[in-house]
Structures are given as structure tokens and as C-alpha cells.
């Protein structure tokens, strides 16, 4: 038999393709995220009794909504591996275990990009006079998505292996995400300011987010194999 251990990239592609295929087939995570985000926007609109938001409040509403919508997917991202043997399969195969971490982070990133493709226009419609701040906000959101995806893929297997996964995941994850949320909010409040976007400390906040992503990517790369051991 012609058999050769697959490269890490090939395993990432295999697991990612499997996850996206299952999501397209079952619609377990993304529709729930979209519905959740829309509901939260409606609640904020009526709860704050405001039809227009700007500055820190606008950034806060948008980013908190994305954060909690992301938790829905993060809580589920390793459930199939736990319940249907994906962890064992990857440990029996001549495959790099960290490929599972990269694949899950990539899947979460795809889910979050789809979420924002839907949620940003809704947010604009509900709360903004002008969408001019949303375009420069995109790199911020992309880096925040990467932060959510990488930390989510790192913490989720630990939570999934515990009985109280719905509780443990957010309890560990949310404190870890504070720096990324501060950076995203720091950039977002100026970009969504009344009167149009300002770029105060824009580069600094992007750099902070990029550094955060890099650090957690390296931690995941180094530690993930240990996390999926029995």
C-alpha cells in the first residue's frame, strides 16, 4: 500500500474540510450565532432606548455581541471530536496533533467572518448614521476574530473534556480575552465616533491584537498535543 505520513497542512485541510462540510450539512453553529447576534442587537436597541450609537458605546455593543456569539461556536467546536472519537482518531494516525488545533481555529475564524458579514449590516441598520467607520474596523475585527478563534481552539478541548463544559469554557476563556477586547474596543471607539472615524492609536491597537494572536498561536502550537491526551 502506498502510504506516507501526511503533512501538518494536509491534516489541517482535511479536518477543516470535514468541519465545514458537517456545519453546512447540519447548520449547528453558524445559524445560532446569527440569530443570537440579531437578538442581542434588538435587545440593546430597546434596552438602551436608542436608535443611534457612537463611540465607545457603539463599539461595546458590537464587540460584546460578537464575543458572546463566538462562545456558542467555541463551546461546540470539539464536541464531535469528544463524542465521536475524533481525538482518538488523530492520536492513532501518523498526523501532527497540533493540526487539529489549527484546523479548529480556522473553522472558528470562518464562522466568525460569516457572522460579521451578516451582523455588520444589521448593526449599521440598527444603530449607525454612517457606515464610514465600518471599513477601517474590518482589520480590527479580523484580528479580534483570530484572537477568539485561537484562544477558543486552545481552551475548548479542556472544557469539552470536563463535565461542566458550558461553564468551564467561558470561565477560563473570558479573562484570557480581556486584552484582545480592550484593544479592539480601543480602536473601535474612535472608528465609530460621532462625526466620522478618527485613527487615534489605530496602528497601536492593531499591533496589540496582532501580538496577542501570535502569542496564543504559539502557545497552542506548543501545548495542544498535551491537551488532547487522555
Amino acid at each position, binding site marked *: 500500500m502506498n*502510504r506516507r505520513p501526511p503533512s501538518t497542512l494536509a491534516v489541517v485541510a482535511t479536518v477543516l474540510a470535514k468541519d465545514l462540510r458537517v456545519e453546512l450539512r447540519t447548520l449547528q453553529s453558524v445559524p445560532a450565532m446569527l440569530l443570537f447576534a440579531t437578538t442581542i442587537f434588538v435587545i440593546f436597541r430597546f434596552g438602551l432606548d436608542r436608535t443611534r450609537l457612537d463611540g465607545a458605546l457603539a463599539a461595546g455593543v458590537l464587540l460584546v455581541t460578537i464575543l458572546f456569539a463566538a462562545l456558542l461556536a467555541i463551546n461546540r467546536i470539539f464536541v464531535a471530536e469528544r463524542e465521536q472519537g475524533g481525538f482518538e482518531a488523530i492520536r492513532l494516525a501518523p498526523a501532527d496533533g497540533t493540526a487539529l488545533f489549527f484546523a479548529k481555529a480556522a473553522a472558528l475564524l470562518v464562522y466568525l467572518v460569516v457572522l460579521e458579514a451578516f451582523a455588520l449590516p444589521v448593526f449599521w441598520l440598527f444603530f449607525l448614521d454612517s457606515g464610514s467607520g465600518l471599513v477601517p474596523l474590518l482589520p480590527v475585527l479580523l484580528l479580534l476574530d483570530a484572537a477568539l478563534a485561537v484562544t477558543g481552539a486552545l481552551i475548548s478541548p479542556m472544557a469539552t473534556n470536563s463535565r461542566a463544559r458550558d461553564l468551564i469554557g467561558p470561565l477560563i476563556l473570558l479573562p484570557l480575552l480581556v486584552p484582545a477586547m480592550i484593544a479592539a474596543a480601543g480602536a473601535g471607539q474612535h472608528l465609530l465616533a460621532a462625526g466620522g472615524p478618527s485613527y487615534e492609536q489605530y496602528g497601536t491597537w492593531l499591533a496589540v491584537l496582532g501580538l496577542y494572536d501570535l502569542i496564543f498561536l504559539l502557545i497552542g502550537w506548543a501545548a495542544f498535543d498535551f491537551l488532547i491526551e487522555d
Partner: protein
Amino acid sequence: MSDPVPEPADAPALRTSGLSHAYGERWVLRDLSLELAAGETLAVLGPNGAGKSTLLRIVATLLRPTEGSIEVFGFDLPREAWKLRGRIGFLGHQPLLYRDLDGRENLAFHAQLFGIADGGARAAELLERVGLAHRASTRVDEMSAGMVKRLAVCRALLHEPDLLILDEPLANLDPAGAETVAPLIGPAPGRTRVVVTHDVDAALEQADRVLGLERDGSVAFELPVGDVDAARARRIYSERTGVAA
């Protein structure tokens, strides 16, 4: 990943010494020492809760032993478990199949994980041999338990493993299904097998060594199959394990 690591010369397929495992305070496997040559079959007998499945998971590199040592093909576990990746076929109680994928998709996924170049052809061949070719496009969650078991057999054999670990491999199969699957997972040149079964006759027929475990996980007997006849094995099994054979 690099190419498979050559195993140490003259190493037995399996060697354990004082192997024990506990889940918390509860010991399920106690002080197991045995040796199995490459190409041989070890049949493992014992009542429920005797540590049979735990032993299989340790041999499969999926579980760390609590005490004692274990070598598979000369590689010390769990320290050198990575050197065995791709050489073990594991058929446990869980089928290791994704419920939302169909049979063909599941096998393609595993073929890619194992780096099998002609995975599609290999999967098609196995599906044909277990009688699932016509249901290859059926999702696993729509299959019967017997069909899932046959698909799991295909998954475990896909990469032609050197060590085949089987936990009650014919459970959930009807007689026709068992007849179809048995030759595929039976003894074969170059294949070492560790098989958990409750069928003493089948164990003696196909095994080179027989291991019996007591209810508390200790070793009731560990015998070369040539040293024991079926009646004696059944009697020992019944007396020492409390299970009628």
C-alpha cells in the same frame, strides 16, 4: 511527520511488566506481565469491568498506565507512542466515525489522516468486502448498529495495521455480518492481534495466547493456547471469572 520509525530488532510485539491502571481510587487492571511475539494473537477473556477495554486502550497508546511498563514493537509507552502512530488499527466500543458524514466520507477522512495515497480505492474495496458498497452514501446516524460496526471494521483496517486491537469485534453483528467480517479481522501474515472476546472457543481457535482477567482486574491465567484444551479453558474461565463459558 517523518517516515515510520524502524522498530528495535527482535523486539516482541507486546511486552508488559507489572502493568496496572486505576481510575481514581478504583483499580481496574493489576500487575499484568506478558509477552506476545510479532504475528501472534492474544485473546483476552474476562467479566465486565475486569479491565479488558482498559488494557486495549493502553496498548493502543490512548491511555497512560498508572503503574508498570509496556512496550509495543519495542517502543516504550507512553514515552515513544508517537513512533507507533499509523501502525495500530483500533476497533473499540466507539466506532470512531462521524455521525454526520456518510460511510465513504468517513473512510476518505481517515485515509487522508493516515496518508493513504489510493484511499478511495482502498475504501471502496473494504466497503465491498463488508457488504456496504451499496450503502456507502448513507450517513452514519442513519445506519443500523451492525452497519456501523462493519464500517468501523473498514476504518480500522484501512491502513493495513501491523497491530490490530479488537474489542468484541463481532458484537452487534448478525450471523451473516459476523461471517462476512470475521475473515477480514482474523489472523493474517505479519499481523499481530489483541482481541477481547467472551467466546472461549473462538479465542482458542484463533489465538496463540489466552489471557483471563478476574473481576478485580488481576490475572486469572495467561497461557499459550497449545497448553490447554477447550474444556479446561472453559472451566478455568468459569471458575476464576465467575462467567459461564
